């Protein structure tokens, strides 16, 4: 019995209609990738690059703003803040009673440890043991301030106990009844007037800006790459430092 074409097709159709084959696991992975469900993994490297660029720019901005805002006022602040403080201590230092000076100086060393009077600390110890002190008159008045504060509370001051040695030490203090000269001595140390003026580094060119950003990251003397800071229109590379290879164009 011969089979018609239609019948032949139907046999194929019916037998293959329910034909099933289990696919491999790779197919679902491929579908997932195709749908972009694993996109995050691919995006991460780009995020990392973007983040590092932002950090670099932020570092550059911070560095730049520090130059402008911090460096300038530094000079003024020294004059405005430090100077009056020193003069104040100096002026007060002259006031204390001359009679209780030396005894209270010992108490002052115990109670208060001023960081800027370490020198006088040692000297006062020797004074305690009755050694004649040859100390500069500049330091003494400060001790008097501290001394006068402590002695009044503890009532440890005995004017009778003042020996000749201490009197010798005290003499210069009594005589330094010139606030004007003391102020001058203290303030001279930190007088900002003598400090050399800070050279302002302004950004004129694109090369300058790159130098600033690179300097924020690379703290070495010779940066990884340096650009010319001349006022020319084009910025040229003037130095490269790759660790082993160093090239620097001399100006």
């Amino acid at each position: 019995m011969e089979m018609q074409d239609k019948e032949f097709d139907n046999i194929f159709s019916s037998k293959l209609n329910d034909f099933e084959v289990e696919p491999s696991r790779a197919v679902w992975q491929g579908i997932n990738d195709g749908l972009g469900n694993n996109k995050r993994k691919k995006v991460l490297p780009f995020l990392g690059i973007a983040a590092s660029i932002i950090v670099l720019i932020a570092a550059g901005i911070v560095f730049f703003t520090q130059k402008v805002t911090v460096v300038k006022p530094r000079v003024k602040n020294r004059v405005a803040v430090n100077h009056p403080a020193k003069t104040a201590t100096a002026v007060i230092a002259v006031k204390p009673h001359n009679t209780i000076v030396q005894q209270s100086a010992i108490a002052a060393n115990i109670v208060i440890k001023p960081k800027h009077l370490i020198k006088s600390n040692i000297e006062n110890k020797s004074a305690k043991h009755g050694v004649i002190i040859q100390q500069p008159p500049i330091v003494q008045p400060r001790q008097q301030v501290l001394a006068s504060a402590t002695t009044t509370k503890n009532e440890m001051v005995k004017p009778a106990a003042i020996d000749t040695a201490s009197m010798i030490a005290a003499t210069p203090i009594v005589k330094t009844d010139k606030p004007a000269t003391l102020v001058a001595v203290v303030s001279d140390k930190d007088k900002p007037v003598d400090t050399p003026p800070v050279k302002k580094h302004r950004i004129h060119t694109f090369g300058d800006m790159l130098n600033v950003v690179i300097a924020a990251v690379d703290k070495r003397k010779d940066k990884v790459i340096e650009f010319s800071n001349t006022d020319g229109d084009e910025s040229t590379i003037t130095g490269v430092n790759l660790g082993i290879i160093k090239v620097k164009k001399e100006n």
Partner: protein
Amino acid sequence: MMFLEHKYTIDTLVNKCKAGERKAQEMLYKQFAAKMLGVCMRYATDRMEAEDMLQNGFIRVFQKMNDYRGEGSFEGWVRRIMVHSSIEYYRKHHKMMQAVDMDEADEPSVNPMAMANLDAKDLIVLIQQLAPGYRMVFNLYAIEGYSHKEIGEIMNITEGASKSQLSRARTILKEQVLKTSNKSYGNAG
């Protein structure tokens, strides 16, 4: 309505897939993957090609999920996408055989009893041995039910070329069926 594990119906899964839920996509894929690979196997030369077709087909299913309006069965909709994915694959990877009208060769006569001994796997092997053009036309006409006109448009060939390719495909298949059945008979005897 078909019920799946976790009490999800196909409709529920379809809605979840439309919302882009990855878990629902995976469940829906697992539900239809084996059956759809069976479809792709008929259009492919081997299993590897079939899996490529299946992968591309399912990507399109999930991308076009919003196009499914619930008219007709979802399985039928997925199946049509798989067929189109297979055609797309064929267009990309096989040169279109611009078959001209051929003189029909004498077709060998096949006894229906010989066909009864062959199972689906045997028939798949026979189809996969056909030249790509013959295989496409035979699948689209004999199994999917497309007309020669539609096949001509899909494959960019004339209607006559589609007819002659179908005829040639049938002849080859019948010869192969006879060979296979004779071999089976010989082994049995």
